[in-house]
């Protein structure tokens, strides 16, 4: 089973509209009638994805968010089912309200495509799929990459080519709006929008070319698996072992991390309870621990390596894609300023 989002070629004419800045709020208000809207909003000095109670809260001028929008598809905590004294199992309802992630950047759209692979291949995950099927992506091309962004090196930004229902590009006086799927087309139909003039596509490329010149970080992907495999026993890992606090922040903020732990919780009446899953991290000591205290990744360098090798080497054979989309969140969040792009340049002797 795969979660279907139509590719442009599967149906006729890609459609281009002009969404004037003044029509953004009315558009959001219209969408809100039928969908829960989730978008970037200001929180302190940062941005977070949150449900929009009022379209005015939306801040499309964000560079990145603390947590990726993954959190509305693969929940940080999720009840799988409840159980009762007579050992009956009651599944939690998997209906899901229709939601739109509005203003999601290209890297995060690519990350969702990777999660789709992890959760829908073999033994499809019904909890993820129920949410994914009811989630539309109104993406926003990046015009201002953040200081830690390196999606350009990985081909996951700043321009999105695929995987969206609608795609916005900020042209200054308003947005170019491109339709990417039949469901996206239904969304635009709630408004009476004028088609975009042809020149809008030229303006879009200008905006993106300008963005492309602003990247400060890059990750050289040439023969990346080969370089990493050769360097599994390099001294750099030992240095990182001493720097890294193994706090797990880098994986918690990563849009492609999918690992979770499972716990049973007993209700106060002691007669019923529920099984719950919660995000887990390979950076934490308990992750690879089994009974009698044995631990397969006791040493911190083994855990540092697991994260970086998983992202840059193992995702490829597992899911046919790199596991990093260059969002830069792990760099931003690390108190010790460990930087995956820097680790790779050091391994390359650059």
């Amino acid at each position, binding site marked *: 089973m795969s979660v279907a989002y139509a590719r442009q070629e599967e149906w006729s004419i890609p459609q281009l509209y002009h969404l004037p800045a003044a029509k953004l709020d009315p558009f959001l208000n219209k969408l809100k009638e039928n969908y829960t809207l989730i978008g970037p909003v200001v929180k302190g000095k940062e941005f977070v994805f949150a449900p929009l109670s009022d379209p005015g809260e939306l801040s499309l001028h964000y560079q990145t968010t603390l947590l990726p929008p993954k959190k509305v598809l693969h929940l940080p905590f999720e009840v799988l089912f409840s159980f009762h004294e007579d050992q009956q199992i009651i599944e939690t309802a*998997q209906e899901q309200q229709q939601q739109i992630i509005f203003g999601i950047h290209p890297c995060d759209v690519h990350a969702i495509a990777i999660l789709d692979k992890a959760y829908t291949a073999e033994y499809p995950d019904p909890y993820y799929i129920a949410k994914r099927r009811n989630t539309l992506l109104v993406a926003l091309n990046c015009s201002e990459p953040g200081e830690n962004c390196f999606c350009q090196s990985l081909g996951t930004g700043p321009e999105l080519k695929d995987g969206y229902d609608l795609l916005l590009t900020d042209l200054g006086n308003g947005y170019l709006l491109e339709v990417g799927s039949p469901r996206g087309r239904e969304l635009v139909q709630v408004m009476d929008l004028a088609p975009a003039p042809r020149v809008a596509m030229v303006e879009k490329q200008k905006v993106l070319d300008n963005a492309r010149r602003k990247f400060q970080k890059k990750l050289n992907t040439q023969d990346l698996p080969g370089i990493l495999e050769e360097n599994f026993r390099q001294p750099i890992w030992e240095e990182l072992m001493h720097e890294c606090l193994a706090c797990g922040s880098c994986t918690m903020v990563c849009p492609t991390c999918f690992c979770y732990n499972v716990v049973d919780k007993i209700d106060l009446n002691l007669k019923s309870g529920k099984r719950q899953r919660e995000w887990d991290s390979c950076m934490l000591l308990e992750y690879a621990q089994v009974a009698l205290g044995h631990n397969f990744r006791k040493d911190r360098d083994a855990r540092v390596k697991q994260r970086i090798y998983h992202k840059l080497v193992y995702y490829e054979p597992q899911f046919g894609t790199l596991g990093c989309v260059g969002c830069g969140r792990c760099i931003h969040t690390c108190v010790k300023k460990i930087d995956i792009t820097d680790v790779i340049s050091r391994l390359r002797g650059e």
Partner: protein
Amino acid sequence: MFNPFKPERAIIKDIIKETTDTTTYTFSFLDEGVRREFRFRPGQFNMLTIFGIGEAPISISSNPAEPETFQHTVRHVGNVTKFLSKMQPGDIVGIRGPYGTGWPLDVLPIKNLLIIAGGIGLAPLRPVIHEVIDRRPEFGQVEVLYGARTPAELLYPAEYEAWRQAGISLLLTVDAVPSGTAWEGQVGVVTDLFRQMSSRPGETAVFTCGPEIMMSYVVKGLLARGFKPEQIYVSLERRMNCGVKKCGKCQIGPKFVCRDGPVFAYAELLTLPEEVLGGAVR
């Protein structure tokens, strides 16, 4: 939509105390349809739930020819497994599975079979022995080397006679013999049995399961005796929270032990960057 995380209810039909810390349970699914459809291959495992306590991966230890009632042999070491030790026939647990690939009995053109187990590691190999006995003419020489800490900790002693009668050569060893215990056999680690075994590399597949440190010495000893990494199969234990390639916990390199394993050819493990068998071999 099918929910792979939802256990099916199963009833404990019978309990056999094996050793001081290990018990064999016979289970049967309550739902008739589930019971009828359940099939497993030697080396596969189930996820066993005690509601309110948790879930643990446990190998199926009984004969695949009798899937309507199947057994798990469990060592009581932690939350789930210790709680199970307090349960009685008639009690209900949750079970889902079977998962994993299992031993390559039908995949390989195997003539001779060498089985090497340590402690609880015999549990996932017992279905192999049952199946070999059922299909005895298809195999040539079949040899089992088994080691436990003490004579009282050997699993399934009541079956040894039947195994031998089926033409399986069984060599036993124990780490130590407590005073007052009768024991005529070998004392020492399982690799000490290599001197007595008659198995040779030609046309032989080796299946081994036990603590990783034991398996690492087994593999080392076998390689020294001319066995090839391609003919040695090991069953690995890893942390597992789903059994179905979702929770990520069991990963070694690009492999999901729950799905790509738990049985791997040793040659396959050699391709992984992470050291697997305790590093004793490399």
